[in-house]
């Protein structure tokens, strides 16, 4: 088992302001850095505090996080079994024709029509109690806590209804007014590969924030993806659109990048914490902006101030 920094260590003073309603945390990374450890940190913190977490990934499968979590002392399967963690796999079958197999009990035939009647995107607040009944994956719960999203080989606007499973899951987990946390990774795939309009994805995020406490969104932020010019393609523009608008809405932004000065043997990259334009200020807290170095090794991840050498 390897050691991870706690969110309090990463966020410092600002951490105590974070676990609040409808907050948005944006984690960005570039090619060559992996934000997985930040994910584990947040998952670990939330799950240990007994909070419900809904974890959605469009670029990695559950086994990836299970093994990675294990290395960091995070037992995802047990949380999955307990029901505190719900994993929604938008990766494995995203573009595969949805063919239900005995192990994945998604009633795909029935799903589109049933979900179709439930939630118009960006609709008004929906009473949480009506959702569990109309949830298409209801049958899957005890045996297979992993839910799958499949848009099919040629995603159509109606297929996007499949994404509503995230919202219904979140709503199903609201208990005693405590909303679950949400972690979403790989939303860029929806834009880039599925051809979904960036605004639709933004709407989705806003919808999800309504029914979750802290929403954490992980997105790549390579400069080629967010620096737009007159020659930018729609692909780049829409990605930039998404990252920037979420950045403006976020309460805090954690960005990972590589060391500007090149490679060092004992530094993996730079973790920068900035405040977004979110509502954190209104609730009394302020995100302490800072930049730290981090180093991933077999022994875990260590964060340290620039110049302290990390020793």
């Amino acid at each position: 088992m390897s050691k991870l920094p706690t969110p309090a260590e990463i966020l410092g003073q600002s951490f105590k302001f974070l676990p609040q309603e409808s907050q948005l945390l944006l984690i960005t990374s570039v090619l060559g850095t992996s934000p997985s450890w930040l994910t584990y940190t947040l998952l670990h913190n939330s799950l240990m505090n007994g909070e419900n977490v809904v974890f959605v990934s469009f670029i990695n499968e559950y086994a990836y996080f299970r093994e990675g979590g294990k290395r960091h002392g995070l037992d995802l399967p047990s949380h999955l079994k307990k029901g505190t963690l719900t994993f929604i796999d938008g990766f494995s079958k995203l573009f595969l024709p949805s063919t239900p197999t005995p192990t994945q009990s998604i009633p795909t035939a029935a799903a589109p029509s049933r979900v179709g009647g439930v939630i118009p995107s960006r609709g008004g607040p929906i009473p949480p109690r009506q959702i569990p009944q109309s949830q298409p994956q209801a049958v899957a719960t005890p045996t297979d806590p992993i839910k799958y999203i499949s848009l099919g080989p040629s995603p159509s606007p109606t297929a996007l209804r499949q994404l509503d499973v995230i919202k219904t899951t979140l709503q199903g987990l609201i208990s005693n007014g405590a909303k679950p946390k949400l972690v979403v990774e790989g939303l860029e795939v929806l834009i880039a590969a599925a051809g979904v309009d960036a605004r639709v994805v933004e709407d989705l995020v806003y919808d999800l924030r309504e029914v979750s406490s802290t929403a954490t969104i992980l997105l790549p932020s390579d400069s080629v993806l967010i620096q737009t010019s007159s020659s930018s393609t729609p692909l780049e523009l829409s990605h930039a659109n998404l990252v920037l608008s979420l950045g403006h809405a976020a309460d805090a932004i954690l960005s990972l990048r590589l060391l500007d000065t090149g490679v060092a043997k004992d530094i993996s990259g730079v973790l920068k914490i900035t405040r977004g334009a979110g509502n954190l200020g209104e609730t009394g807290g302020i995100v302490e902006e800072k930049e730290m170095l981090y180093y991933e090794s077999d022994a875990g991840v260590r964060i340290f101030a620039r110049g302290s050498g990390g020793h």
Partner: protein
Amino acid sequence: MSFRKRSVVLNTSGSSNSTPAAAASGAPQSTPPTPPAKGVRPSFLTGVPTTSTGTASLDALLSGHEGLPLGSMVLIEESSTTDFAGALLRYYAAEGIVQGHNVVVIGAGEAWGRELPGLSDRKEDNEDIKKKGKEERMKIAWRYEALGNRRTVDSPPSLQMGTDASEPVSLFCHTYDLTKRLTIPSSSKPPTYIPPPPPTSTSPFSSILSSLSTLLAAASSTNSITRVLIPNLLSPLSYPPSSSHPTHLLQFIHTLRSLTRQYSQILTIMISFPLPLYPRTTGLTRHLEHLSDATIELHPIPTFLARFEMTKSSSSSTSADDIPQGLVKVWKAIEGKKGTGIVGSSSKGDGSGGVVGMEGGDDLAFMLTRRRMRIERFSLPVDEGDDGGDEHKPHNPSSTVGEGVGGVEAGKKMHKVDLEF
């Protein structure tokens, strides 16, 4: 003996997959190893099963795994009109054929597959071994191999190697010779070809994906290791314009990625991608890189190529091995497979394993000779009095550009002599 010892160690390090092979190698020689482990060994780093890329120095570059973890997808980019990436892919395909793996070539015809390099030397497992002075052993091995062929016709894929008792029962990575053509052993399956999408299709990759899934479903039922190659993805020669539309391409790549996870015990994918057509500064390429497990760029440098040509033509063929033809950049290192999130583990202290995966890391250079492709750490060589001479050397550009192929042709004659016996 030493090899046997090593496999014992591997065995205790706790990989289930290596067990049959290791056990078999310790057992009496008459027992061939069980096929599933052929060409597969546990990662030195995490113990996940890995297979060889067919290029030993590329294996060494893979974050300390010393092999390509099954269930991963590698993107080889080439920032020039040369075809060095093609050589890497051919080694990868040839290795698969020699090991009896399924080899699936997407988007290239059988002509591509006819150019696979042949085995150069059965004994040459390790690149450290000098070629000189090994001819004797080589001859012996070949005779034994022919013998083995006759003797064990019915015990399929194991006969390719392991005919010499002093060797490990199966080599992990063979050495190939670009001047030779691979003859597909009777024990191996010939490559399967999936044609490029037809020019008019509206969803160009769907037919490829459906035939690939069929192949994979069949392969997984027999648990046979499968290598998928996509040479020159999006090359306008074979792909219709519609295929470079982001939704088409990225859907395809995303699905390939999910296939590698679904068939994580049998599947590896290697893609070569022409950067001149789709530069790294485009979002499309960057998304492609994000979706792949490892991204390696080959960056041929014309002056390097020129110097290489020069050295070769000046008849000292041995030193040509050491002249780099370009730089290798690892933009994304393979992760400790199965999600450690740790890029470029530091457990290998040799530098190449420690720092890959970071932009502008240690410079790596590649050298492609007719014998093999090597990737090594690179530092600028001391200019040995060739200042000024370099620029004046008359080099026809075509030979420089077509080095990947041209060098092969040039070396052919000399090579014939080498191997005659």
